[in-house]
Structure formats: C-alpha cells, structure tokens
C-alpha cells in the first residue's frame, strides 16, 4: 500500500519546510518529492506533521469501561491526531503486573485507532508503599511508571522507585500535589474560592510537592550516576506559575526533569467555576490568568517540553452531580489539537513547529524515545490538518464515551483530517475528499 499526500505544508518539531509531496510506502516516508502511489490525497491548503503523541491519558480499562474503553479511547485519540497514547494505570484493578500489561496489549492489537502504550503503577495498588517490578514491567512493554491519580506521599518510596525505574530505563511520572495542603480543595484556592465558598486547592500544594520531588530526584541522580543509569522524572500537568519556576530552576541545576502541561490548564481558568459546573472540576485545578501566561512562556521556552492531554473521561451522570461528588477530570483528546492550534498558534502567535514539538517530540523524549521528523526513511506516523476551516466543538460527535466538554460551542480551527500510524489510516475525516 502506498499513499501520496500532495502539496501539503510540511511542519515538524524542527520547523516549517515548505510544501512537499510526501510518498508513504511500507509504513515509512519514502519521498518528500512525489512518486508513484496507489492512492493520492490533495493536501493543498492543509498541513502535514508528525502525528501527535499523548504521554498521559486515562483510557479506563480495565474495570471502568462505562467511562471509556480501549476501543473508544484509541479511536478518539486517532481522531484527535494522535498516533500513540500512553494510558495511565489508575484502573480497577491497577495496571501493575507484567501480565496486566501483556493482556492489554493483546486486546489493543485487535483494535483500530491509535497505538496503545501503557504506563504501569509505580507502587502496588498505587498506594505509594511497595514498589512494582520495574524491570519485569519494562520487559512486558510498559513505557512509563506512575501512580497518577494519586500523589506519592512517601518520599523514600519515590526515591527508590526512581532508582529501579532508571535501572529499567523507565521514566517515573508524578502527580505532584501535597495531599494535606490540598485537603478537600476542589477549585483553585484564592479570592474567588473564598467568595464562592468552595474549598480551595492552593498552587502552593503543587509547588511544595514539586520542590520536594526535585530533591528526591537529586538524591536518585546521585545514587544512579556511578552505576551509569539515567534517572528521569516527569512532572505531570504543571498548573501554576510557581510550579514552572521550580522546574526552570531544576533545569539550571541540570536535573533530569521533564514537565508537562495540559490543554485545559492552557485555555481555562478558575473563573470558569462561576458556572458551578463540575465539567470544570479537575486536579490540579484550573488556575489564574497569570498562571496561564506563565505556563505559555514556559511552553515556548522549553521549560515545559511536553503537552499531555490528561484525557480523563467520566460518565455524563457522574459529572451531573454536585461539585463535591462529581469526579475530577476533563475529557479532551479529540479537541486538544484544534484547541491549542486555535488558542495558541492562531490567536497568540505561538509557533506551529513548537506546538508540534511539544505534542510529539517532547513527550517522546521524556520517555526516552526518539523524535519523529518529516524525512525519508522515518516511520509514517503522520497527521494532516486543516488550518483554515473552523468548526464548533460538538460533544455529540465525540468518539470518546465522555460526550460533554468544557469547550462546547467554541469555534476552533485545525481539525485533524487524517491520522496515519505507520502509514495506516487510523482516522480520516469526512471533510477529506
């Protein structure tokens, strides 16, 4: 099977490369200057990029298939322009044994959509006490270790976890919030939470935990370096200005820390809570405009090198409860790219190549994988999108089971038209002739 995408603008994490005719053959990029192909797509007016890579998604399998399952989650991801998704292990039961990992890969091998990659729990039942077998999980194909959904309260366990993960060439991802400072907090702690009488979750809870985790990382690096192991800490969903500052300081110290930001923390703020709609309930919480600005600057400078969706689907009924009883989490994998293309690139002049870098190269690098570039011989994990036509966010059209959205009704550009996974079409929009 060969495919020719003609006359699309070529953009990858390294920059914009003008128009080209990209020939895909045997799952790889065979040429950037045309050639014979069984099928041809006219890419005029569209942009071709490496497909997106989501380092942080909640696909809810096993055990919570009422919220999402592998089939719906992987299709939704492909529709969103993602060729691969890392699913978090906070399932029921948690993904924590090598056989859990193998079993899920086996299920996914029969499904369409994006490629499934698995994060496994760092500790048993994600309780933060006993470590899981990093080496065996790696052998089974886990690409990341994380107790996401919970914070790692025990610093000693996290420290040793970083060491064992490093020995297995795995990154450890952390949900960094100090549990006791966070308390019962639901929304960002500040003047607005005080006014609305809603329990606040302060930015300091995130900053305090990031600061501690960076010292834990320093310890692990000191222990691992003589043995030649590469420690990598991945800080998920940084939401605050102070959080980004701490990451920047750690980079100045050459600490191997990678930081992530989510589409919702870049586009929504605590102000949205005036609606009292649990659709905005997420942890860490939506912050202030000055946090959003700081996150954008950090994303542009590379202090934050990765955008993870933190796609966290729940049933509509669960989100139609009161603010306390509705669960935390925002589903977004189908709108993440058009949202960020519209709000960052189109409206704020954020460079497109940089957005692609943060949604593809950055997460890969954090997991110890190499980036994907538009060059001959590269695997054809590609996305074609339309930078011009705008469309409203309509949750009724979602492939995810979570058919609601905090961005409902937003008019966005940049909808993915085609997603290729090793040359194979995993998403094609009806708008693409």
């Amino acid at each position: 099977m060969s495919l020719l995408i003609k006359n699309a603008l070529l953009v990858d994490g390294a920059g914009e490369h003008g128009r080209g005719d990209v020939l895909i053959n045997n799952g790889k990029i065979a040429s950037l200057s045309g050639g014979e192909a069984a099928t041809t797509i006219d890419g005029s007016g569209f942009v071709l990029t490496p497909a997106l890579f989501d380092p942080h998604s909640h696909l809810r399998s096993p055990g919570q298939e009422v919220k999402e399952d592998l089939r719906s989650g992987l299709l939704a991801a492909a529709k969103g322009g993602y060729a691969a998704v890392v699913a978090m292990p906070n399932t029921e039961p948690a993904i924590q044994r090598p056989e859990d990992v193998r079993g899920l890969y086996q299920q996914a091998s029969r499904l369409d959509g994006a490629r499934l990659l698995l994060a496994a729990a760092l500790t048993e039942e994600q309780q933060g006490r006993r470590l899981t077998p990093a080496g065996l999980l790696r052998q089974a194909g886990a690409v990341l270790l994380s107790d996401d959904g919970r914070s790692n309260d025990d610093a000693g366990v996290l420290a040793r976890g970083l060491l064992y993960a490093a020995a297995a060439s795995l990154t450890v991802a952390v949900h960094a919030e100090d549990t006791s400072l966070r308390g019962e907090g639901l929304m960002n702690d500040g003047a607005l939470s005080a006014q609305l009488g809603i329990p606040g979750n302060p930015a300091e809870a995130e900053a305090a935990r990031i600061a501690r985790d960076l010292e834990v990382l320093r310890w692990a690096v000191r222990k691992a370096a003589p043995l030649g192991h590469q420690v990598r800490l991945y800080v998920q969903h940084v939401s605050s200005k102070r959080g980004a500052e701490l990451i920047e300081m750690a980079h100045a110290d050459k600490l191997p820390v990678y930081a992530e930001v989510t589409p919702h923390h870049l586009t929504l703020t605590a102000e949205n809570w005036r609606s009292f709609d649990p659709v905005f309930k997420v942890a860490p919480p939506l912050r202030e405009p000055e946090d959003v600005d700081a996150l954008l600057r950090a994303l542009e400078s590379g202090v934050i090198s990765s955008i993870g969706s933190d796609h966290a689907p729940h049933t509509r009924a669960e989100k139609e409860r009161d603010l306390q009883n509705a669960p935390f989490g925002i589903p977004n994998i189908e709108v993440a790219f058009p949202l960020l293309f519209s709000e960052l690139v189109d409206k704020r002049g954020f460079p497109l190549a940089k957005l692609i870098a943060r949604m593809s190269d950055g997460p890969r690098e954090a997991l110890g994988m190499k980036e994907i570039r538009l060059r001959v011989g590269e695997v054809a994990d590609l996305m074609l999108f339309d930078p011009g036509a705008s469309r409203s966010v309509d949750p009724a059209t979602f492939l995810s089971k979570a058919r609601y959205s905090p961005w409902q009704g937003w008019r966005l550009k940049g909808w993915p038209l085609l997603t290729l996974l090793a040359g194979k079409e995993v998403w094609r929009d009806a708008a693409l002739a």
Partner: protein
Amino acid sequence: MAALKHLLDFEGWRRSEVESLLETARLMEEVLERPMKKVPALKGFTIATVFFEPSTRTKTSFELAAKRMSADVVSFAVSGSSLSKGESYKDTLLTLQAMVLDAYVIRSPVAGMAHQAAGWLRGSVINAGDGRRAHPTQALLDAYTLLDELSQLEGKKIAIVGDIAHSRVARSNAELLPLLGADVWAAGPVGLLPEVLKGARLTSNLAEALSDADAVMVLRLQKERMQDGSLPSIREYISEYQITAERMNLARPGALLLHPGPMNRDLELAGTLAEGSHSRVERQVRAGEAVRMAVLYHLLVGRAA
C-alpha cells in the same frame, strides 16, 4: 421590578428589590398575627423541598410558609447514601419535575447545588443553603430582624463573629447587608477567616469588630473544625471569641444579638445571653417564616400589590 425567577444568592440584586421583598414580608407577618393564619395567595401552586442534607428547622420554616399561603408542599430527602454512586443529580431532579412542581427549595452540603438545579429545572429554585456558599433567606430574615428595630441599616455597624470561612450565613449577610447600606465586619480566629469576604471587613481582633456595633451576629461553631485542624483549641476559642455579656458592652448600648441557630450554648455564646435583653433569636425565627412567605410569593406570583 423585573420578575425574579430564582433566589440563589444576592448577586445582581438591587437595593429596591430587596426592600420590596422585605416590605412584602411585613405584610406576611401581619397574616401571622391573625387568628386565622392562612391566605389563599399560592392556592394551586406546588412547592417541593429537596434536602440533600437534613435540616429540620429550615425545612419546617419553608413548609409552614408555603402552607400559610395555601400552596401544596411535597418533601424529598435526598441523602447522599440514597443516591447510587453513578447516579445523576440532574436525572433525580428531573424525575421530581415530572410531578409538575412550581418551585424547588433546595438545601445541599455542597456549594453551587442550587445554581446547578436552576440550570436543569423549569420552575423557580430557592436556595435554602448550599455548602459554605449562600443562605439567602437566612440573610433576609436577619436583615428583617435588624430593620425591625434599627428602622434602617444605612451606616449601621454589624459584626459577624465566629467561623466566617465555612459560613454560608456570613457570606450571604456580607452580600446583602451592604446592599442596604450597612457597614459589615467579620471577626474570628485566623484559621477560620477566608482570604476575602466581599462586602465585609475581616479582622481577627474581636474587640475591633464589636466596638460600637449596632448588632452582633454570632455564628454556630462546628465541632468538626477541630478535626480538620482549622481550629486548634475550643478552650482558646471560648477564651478569645465567645460572646459574653462583658464583650457585648463593647457594642452600642442596646445592641442586638442574633444567632442563626442551632446554638451551642457556652461555646460561641455565653449561655445566659440567648435569653437576655440583647437577644433577638426568637424574633429571627418568626421573621424567617414571614420572609420565606414573601420569597415564595415574589418568585411565584410577582411583586406584592
């Protein structure tokens, strides 16, 4: 006055609207003074009380208010445990709506529930208390009680004392009383004060708040504040913030003493004060009924003639 559909809080309310409502409450109180305490004003209307947390006093007050105006009343207790884990509150409320109801009196331990319900339901929603956020009929009855004796609140100093951070009564009064011209102060221990209280001046210095106050509103102290660590010591609270006869002397002579109830005697308030000459606690209860009659009437029928 534009017809108000819901009473959720006082955001967007104008002084004239509040005054008109309180004026109606005065007419309603006349009804309560008659031997035959019933008028046909809401005959044919059906009002539901939907309580996500138990509160006998507030519920009884609303039900009585509705019945005095000849409305039919149905009550639903929706405890967290009666709702299954994944059950939609919206679906639960829409099931009630199918019974053809005109107004919903909603009480919840969680902020925002009344707003959410107002977005889901066709009828009027009256917030009977949502978490720490708002308790507008309590604030209205407080204002009514104060106006009864102070005749107007312009420039009057009102001190709210106690657990301000967790109090919907404090939030609603801080919203409402300044609308009527009052100068509102809120005092409590530092761990029980919010970052801001719109409409009020915050202080941990009780004497400053009480000094020359025209009225003192004492809040109920929840014992769970000890468990969550926001209050280290009840003994220390009593020693520094309990309202005593001596401390009432810091206020103006004859200052009014209010409490939303139920009271922890000898905790937030020295036991003897509740029955003393300052106290208007009993007055508040009757004002509550009149105010709730007025609210139901305003929302369902419109402005009083």
